[in-house]
């Protein structure tokens, strides 16, 4: 066979039966191997015609007539030129590595799929997924696809190289020559096209300007293409530069740009445009909705720090029945204002030395915050005793209101003292010659030095008129007093001792009688003393009995002795023995006979089981319930003009009686001024607000006033230490002098972030965070 001759290869055998693709391929390869360089194949649907002709080094020309099968020219070699005289099937030029393929009709789906080199000219249109997965190898010229008509759907997917030219001449769809969703995943190459299209993958490709160099290439290629497909007359129609457009792949950097409308733009233009200014609820709320940072100041803080100076009672103040703000007195001492600290007491009690310094069991100290950390409470007794020197305040002129106080004990003196201090005219009526009640008559001198008590009673007597009434009070007396005065205050105490109603009851003596006689040295109790009732009064009896010569002192009780504090200590020091439970059957000449038959020898039997009030003089308007006068929180009885306070209402500590006097006086002052009585309703500061970490738990209890003052935590009262100023991370707190004297700490709302550090650090628990007022 000669190289110049064209060899015709039949796709069918002599019987007209289509030969297998494998056999046709063998014929072609054999021919080429034999030196044939021009072939004409009468195809009958065979696969892969014209590919893989690497056995020849010269150009091999293949003309295909009939019907080629799929993958015409696949794995094509650069020496190969294929011309199909009609249409081509699927995957023409698949993995083309250099062959030139000319199709005079349409080409099917997948034309040029995976093509890396070579050129493919199609005189008609190409099917879907053409020019997909194309490559570009820098060692060779890029692949080219020329299409006169249009491209099918999904054109150019994952195109990585090469040039495609879609001329749009007599396209299959005149509205869209690039088909549905072209160029998805495109990463390289160019697509030149002429005519309308319906979008492409914006994420992967972009329109590009056709540069001069491109245009020259396009014109040249177009001319060649049209000659090859024998339509040179179209050149003038197609080679119009402004009709052409170009698509290129986006670079990875360009792909990062999201081709979405910005939400801000959407909100402004579309959202607010449809809904109106302010969006969804712009018509319902005029609240500023702009974004806020996490840490806010001013009105946008969720909490507001408040300097709650003296808004709460210190635990000492709150538990003191008299209500003395002890912490404020220590502040004065720390400030070096000793006199003021001492004098201040007299506005709360006429007996600061007697009671706070000696007789009171000091509930204030029991409640002292320091106790919660096992620290010794601040000792108030030295301060109490120092108050003996308190200077009497100047009392105001009389208001015209007249008040009678019946009873000159602690309660009566307290209420009269307070009322006089407020300028009301008071008179104290008492059956004793001198004021003082049980403090004077019953409490042993071992408990309270006579000169201290005398001095304080004299101080009270110096401002309180006293009428000594010499016969038992009657109902008529009280009614008359009521008629003559604006208010009457009953403070007659508990003066009727309770005795045991047992056989031989006449042999007992009441503690009240015993202590009165003892104080006057008018009784000799003998060697053996048995005290029924082991409370604090019983202890006083024991102490006095010892002083008066008793040798064996026994306190018996039916239950665990209630005695506590100094009284009990003193009784034990006096050698008194406590026994319980002991149930008394009778008193005999020899002593106390118990239920179990035991006889306790006794020379004197003292019954200390409490005293009851005498109530037979009460007017009918004053109601009594279960042996007690009915009173409200400030001592007012069912008769609004009659008050009852002190032990006659219910037995308690002396400080209870003094406190009751203060409250009644406050109520009367309010009522006299035409106001509803208003008591101090402040709560006690919560323990956890005070920070005892500032104090040294190793320091022993102080006794001198300065030392005590330094140990007071000043619960709820600002000690002006300035820690809040120092600790505030925003520098928002400042100390301000007040015009009326004093000071305050203030917060600059525009600096404060409501971190609460002020509250966290404040030693006194003065700062607190309050929830901000809700916004609309």
């Amino acid at each position: 066979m000669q190289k110049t001759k064209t060899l015709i290869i039949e796709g069918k055998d002599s019987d007209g039966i289509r030969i297998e693709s494998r056999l046709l391929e063998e014929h072609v390869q054999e021919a080429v191997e034999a030196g044939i360089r021009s072939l004409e194949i009468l195809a009958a649907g065979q696969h892969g015609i014209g590919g893989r002709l690497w056995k020849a080094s010269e150009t091999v020309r293949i003309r295909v007539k009939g019907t080629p099968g799929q993958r015409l020219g696949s794995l094509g070699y650069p020496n190969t030129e294929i011309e199909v005289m009609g249409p081509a099937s699927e995957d023409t030029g698949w993995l083309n590595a250099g062959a030139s393929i000319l199709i005079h009709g349409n080409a099917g789906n997948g034309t040029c799929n995976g093509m890396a080199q070579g050129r493919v000219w199609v005189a008609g249109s190409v099917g879907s997924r053409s020019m997909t997965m194309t490559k570009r190898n820098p060692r060779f010229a890029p692949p080219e696809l020329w299409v006169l008509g249009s491209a099918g759907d999904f054109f150019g997917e994952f195109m990585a190289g090469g040039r495609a030219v879609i001329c749009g001449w007599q396209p299959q769809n005149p509205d869209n020559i690039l088909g549905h969703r072209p160029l998805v995943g495109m990463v390289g190459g160019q697509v030149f096209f002429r005519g309308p299209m319906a979008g492409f993958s914006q994420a992967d490709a972009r329109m590009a300007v056709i540069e001069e160099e491109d245009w020259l290439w396009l014109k040249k290629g177009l001319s060649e293409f049209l000659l090859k497909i024998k339509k040179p007359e179209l050149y003038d129609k197609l080679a119009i530069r402004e009709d052409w457009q170009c698509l290129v792949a986006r670079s990875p950097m360009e792909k990062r740009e999201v081709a979405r409308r910005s939400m801000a733009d959407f909100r402004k233009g579309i959202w607010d445009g449809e809904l109106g200014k302010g969006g969804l609820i712009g018509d319902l709320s005029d609240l500023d909705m702009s974004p806020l940072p996490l840490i806010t100041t001013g009105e946008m803080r969720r909490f507001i720090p408040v300097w709650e100076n003296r808004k709460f009672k210190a635990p000492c103040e709150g538990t003191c029945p008299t209500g003395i703000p002890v912490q404020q007195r220590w502040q004065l001492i720390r400030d070096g204002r000793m006199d003021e600290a001492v004098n201040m007491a007299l506005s709360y009690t006429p007996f600061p030395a007697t009671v706070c310094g000696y007789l009171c069991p000091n509930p204030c100290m029991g409640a002292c915050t320091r106790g919660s950390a096992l620290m010794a409470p601040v000792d108030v007794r030295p301060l109490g005793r120092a108050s003996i020197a308190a200077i009497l305040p100047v009392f105001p002129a009389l208001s015209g209101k007249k008040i009678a106080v019946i009873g000159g004990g602690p309660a009566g003196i307290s209420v009269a003292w307070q009322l006089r201090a407020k300028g009301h005219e008071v008179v104290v009526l008492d059956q004793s010659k001198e004021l003082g009640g049980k403090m004077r008559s019953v409490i042993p001198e071992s408990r309270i030095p006579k000169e201290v008590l005398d001095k304080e009673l004299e101080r009270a007597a110096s401002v309180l008129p006293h009428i000594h009434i010499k016969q038992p009070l009657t109902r008529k007396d009280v009614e008359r007093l009521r008629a003559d005065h604006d208010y009457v205050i009953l403070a007659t105490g508990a003066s009727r001792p309770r005795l045991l109603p047992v056989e031989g009851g006449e042999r007992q003596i009441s503690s009240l009688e015993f202590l009165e006689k003892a104080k006057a040295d008018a009784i000799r109790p003998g060697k053996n003393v048995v005290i029924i009732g082991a409370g604090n009064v019983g202890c006083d009896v024991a102490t006095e009995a010892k002083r008066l010569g008793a040798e064996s002192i026994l306190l018996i009780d039916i239950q665990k002795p209630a005695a506590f504090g100094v009284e009990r200590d003193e009784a034990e020091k006096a050698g008194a023995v406590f026994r319980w439970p002991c149930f008394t059957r009778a008193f005999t000449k020899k002593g106390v006979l118990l239920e179990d038959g035991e006889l306790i020898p006794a020379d004197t039997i003292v019954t200390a089981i409490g005293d009851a009030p005498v109530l037979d003089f009460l007017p009918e308007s004053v109601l009594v319930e279960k042996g007690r006068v009915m009173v409200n929180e400030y001592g007012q009885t069912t008769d609004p003009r009659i008050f009852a306070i002190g032990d006659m209402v219910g037995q308690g500590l002396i400080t209870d009686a003094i406190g009751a006097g203060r409250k009644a006086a406050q109520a009367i002052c309010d009522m006299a001024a035409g106001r509803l009585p208003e008591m101090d309703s402040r709560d006690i500061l919560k323990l956890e607000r005070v920070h005892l970490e500032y104090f040294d738990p190793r320091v022993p209890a102080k006794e001198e006033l300065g030392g005590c003052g330094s140990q007071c935590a000043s619960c709820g009262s600002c000690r002006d230490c300035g820690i809040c100023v120092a600790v505030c991370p925003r520098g928002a707190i400042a100390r301000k002098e007040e015009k009326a004297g004093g000071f305050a700490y203030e917060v600059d709302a525009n600096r404060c972030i409501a971190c609460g550090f002020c509250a966290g650090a404040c030693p006194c628990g003065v700062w607190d965070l309050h929830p901000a007022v809700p916004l609309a």
Partner: protein
Amino acid sequence: MSANGQIIPSSLSISDLPWQIRWNQDKCTLCGSCTAVCPVNAIELGVFRKREITAGLGLAEKPASSQTIRYGIRQRTSPAYACVGCAMCSMVCPNDAILPERNDGGDKLRFHINQGGQPRSRGGRRNDPAGLLDQIKFIRISMLTDPALDAGRHTFELNTLLGRVLEPRDALKHQREHGWMPPVREIYPLVIGGMSFGALSPPMWEGLQMGVAYLNEELGMPVRMCTGEGGCPPRLLRSRFLKYVILQIASGYFGWDEIIHAIPEMKEDPCAIEIKYGQGAKPGDGGLLMWHKVNKLIAAIRGVPERVSLPSPPTHQTQYSIEESVAKMIQSMSMAWGFRVPVYPKISATSTTLAVLNNLTRNPYAAGLAIDGEDGGTGAAYNVSMNHMGHPIASSLRDAYLNLVKVGKQNEIPLFAGGGVGKNGNLAANAAALIMLGASGIQTGKYIMQAAAGCLGSEQDRCNICNIGLCPKGIASQDPRIFRRLDAEKVAERVVDLYLAFDMELRKILAPLGRSTSLPIGMSDALGINDFHAAERLGIRYVV
């Protein structure tokens, strides 16, 4: 509290708390940000006394003790102030000096949270990290047996239908005899489940709606969002965006007068009406909007007084049987829009789901059924309801679907499934699993809260204070001081992000299955699970 205070039964130490604050003194600058931002005031400035004892070697010098005061961040231990683990402190700390850590020793707070005889209630979730949906695999991979699809380049028809889809013969008959065809909507299969305006803050709700509008109008995704039960702002009712909205009516009937007044002025019909009978995460507990959140705005939209707690009764007050509930409610709601709007009930998944479904199949006006499983949940409820009540979605949905298959109506009544979809982040996988078990669409709420707005909740009981208005992200608060932390626009952007990502993931699941022309509803041969009993129960393949 003083370190040596008296203890009470509910005295807790830090080690008893579920979340413990780790604070680093060396890094802390005491700037106050952490205590300022803490939603529950779990931390405060503490005063510490630091003692140092010095003694010389050989005791040559007299030993001495000195003390100084220090300041630092202290965790409070009272149950009322227990740390919720939200970690906003870490978020604001400029020096990374503070961080809450989960107590892995078993907390004791759970035994003391019921102070005052009030059992714990909370917002949020079921707090169960496990879940069946995550175990389901897609085992049918197109290996030459089905069309080879590429999620990236092929087009997928993912939309679903909401409404009664009659078979052609019935449809024609219906049209001919009744002159009416049931309304059907073509929508995206992932619906934002009902979270009310009130439960959610204004920027959260607006952000969701804005994101949905964007998806529809800019990206052509017909995403729909259910209002939940709290009414609907009047402007939205009168806007074209209403067509993206599924209005919910529930037992509280909040805000319905506003809706009725708006009907004559509506530019568009709503997408659908959802009648809520139950919430899967807290069945029987009803809705509960705590008073903290009922401010002027919420009160106005709901038509109630300000600052009152708003319980929705667990049941509708005037409906006494399934037949009546279904018939009466669907009729009323259909009538309101001239039978142009699909109306469907939403129920908690329950062992009695089929009873409801059977009633719906007999009612030509019923547009579908939404079934809400026990997992997930965004509402406020009692602990016991969230933790111990409810039915898992998978088997409830599967039973319902197979029942429809049995009566030949599986393409007629769409089932929408919800409850824990995406609770561990696997939104598309969970959704696809439910679709292949028989759901026409998915409702999700919690995933949206987390992905669109940064909800801090986890399945480990983190934060969960949505119910008391203190949501640190501003998602579930009505306090402008808090909710203004959230920017509606940013929420909307995230809604768009998560939908686009979901869409891609769903295609990544469907492509290997060779399904692109329609959602593979009920294509259970694609599902497998390595739990034999679950496989048996769901009628899917057991794979090991």
